[in-house]
């Protein structure tokens, strides 16, 4: 696998190890089916991007994987002793709670000053240790959230829209940082994003979600996949597509797929 080449320097037992898998996973909330028939496997040392339009169930899927919400069908398996670092999508700290960055980071694990200084260097904001959390910018706070996830020494990082509310350069920086972390720590990373362009460079594998997994594979392959094109429109695909398919292929309201022909598009998956 080409994934492994870039991570040869990290301990091998982590890389390539299966961390999490889901089989025929189905989640309903308030009687509404949100996810169905989800199969996935996530490995150590691999960056997987979960993309999909708003309401596709991206956050629901990672909540189910993390065990934060119950699921009604299928199963989720985690490697024994798996430590997950989670970075939630939105976290607003009420200014009525006085909190320094240092104090905020100490909440996730019993860690000392040195570890906190070190992890802040790792996410490139060492100067923020004594800053009040309420004074941080969006980009700074995202890095602090990432640092908090890292302090647990995770085997698996789950990042829900880590680069939102950050400008373009900030997004690029964040994805570069995530890639560095994967290389240095050898952990698996699952990144949620609504924008395939943003995740392109750093991602090994893309899962495109819309209630079910529409398609998956290398970013270039997914961007050319008809289901991806159907979800995001041809223009989203054009800028990065390697192939152009024009199969007729539509989604109905319940998230089901009407395939124009019975032929699958496996040739586009590139693995």
């Amino acid at each position, binding site marked *: 696998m080409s994934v492994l080449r870039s991570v040869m320097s990290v301990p091998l037992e982590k890389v390539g190890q299966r961390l999490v898998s889901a089989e025929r996973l189905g989640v309903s909330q308030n009687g509404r089916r949100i996810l169905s028939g989800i199969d996935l496997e996530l490995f150590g040392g691999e960056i997987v991007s979960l993309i999909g339009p708003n309401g596709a169930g991206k956050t629901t899927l990672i909540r189910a994987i993390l065990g*934060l919400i119950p699921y009604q069908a299928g199963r989720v398996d985690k490697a024994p002793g798996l430590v997950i670092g989670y970075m939630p999508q939105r*976290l607003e700290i009420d200014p009525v709670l*006085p*909190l320094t960055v240092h*104090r905020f980071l100490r*909440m*996730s694990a019993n860690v000392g000053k040195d570890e906190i200084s070190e992890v802040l260097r790792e996410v490139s904001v060492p100067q923020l240790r004594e800053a009040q959390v309420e004074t941080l*910018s969006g*980009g700074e706070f995202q890095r602090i959230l990432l640092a*908090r996830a890292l302090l647990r020494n995770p085997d698996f990082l789950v990042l829900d829209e880590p680069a939102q509310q950050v400008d373009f350069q900030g997004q690029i920086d964040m994805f570069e940082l995530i890639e560095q972390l994967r290389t240095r720590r050898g952990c698996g990373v699952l990144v949620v994003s609504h924008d395939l362009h943003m995740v392109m460079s750093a991602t090994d594998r893309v899962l495109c979600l819309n209630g079910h997994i529409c398609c998956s594979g290398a970013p270039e392959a997914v961007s050319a996949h008809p289901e991806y094109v159907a979800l995001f429109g041809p223009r989203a695909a054009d800028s990065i597509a390697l192939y152009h398919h024009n199969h007729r292929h539509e989604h109905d309201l319940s998230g089901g797929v009407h395939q124009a022909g019975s032929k699958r598009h496996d040739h586009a998956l590139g693995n």
Partner: protein
Amino acid sequence: MLDDFFWRALIGGIGVALIAGPLGCFVVWRRMAYLGDSLAHGALLGIALGLVFDIDFTIGIIASSIALVALLILLQRQNRFASDTLLVILAHGALSLGLVAVSFFEGQRLDLMVYLFGDILAVGRGDLIWIYSGGAAILAVIACLWRPLLAITVHEELARAEGVKVSLVSIAFMLLIAVTVAIAMKIVGILLIASLLIVPAAAARRLAQTPEQMAALAIFAGVLAVVGGLFGSLEWDTPSGPSIVVAALAVFLLSFVVGAGRQLIRPRHRPIAEP
């Protein structure tokens, strides 16, 4: 020079301020001011329970408060009404039930004013024992729960992902408020308990840099309010409970002045570097 009753009032009031400081901070952080107020209203049902079953009023109030918390949690799980709606239904329901029940005990000559506004000057040795033993227990539980409680206050889901038993901790917290209300009632009365939880914590906010500092400052503000209020009430012959709340209000306003002054001298740290 000072009478025994005044010393008892002072010691009791300070004891309540010690509990109310840290707990009040969490009430403010978790936006649960309404819960404290509602439990206090419901305490009158506890007094009625005490009369009916001839048990200690404090125990009656603790029992009714726990029942209210349990009902609230059950109804919240139904997800049909917002919490503030449920709280009004439960609290005013319990208050009215209590008032109706108490009216059957005309002969007892229950002085409702004492319970509504407190009578700190009638604090007896038994009350002091309640305040200090109950208070020590409450503070011990808060100390144990401090970290998970803070974690769920910042972000429930993140805390859950990090292994905190969220519902257990939040139920424990509500029970702590219930017991505190029962203990503090004698000092400021049903109508003013919430202010003793919230005003000192609010006063502490502007001067604190960390949650722990805020809790310590809230204790200090509470003690200041109790001492100031009691001496004021002695000096000007005013009702003690409301005097304490007025003093707390003064401390709150003072914290603005001090906070603004500190800001003038030493502007708050604002990191310049954007990564």
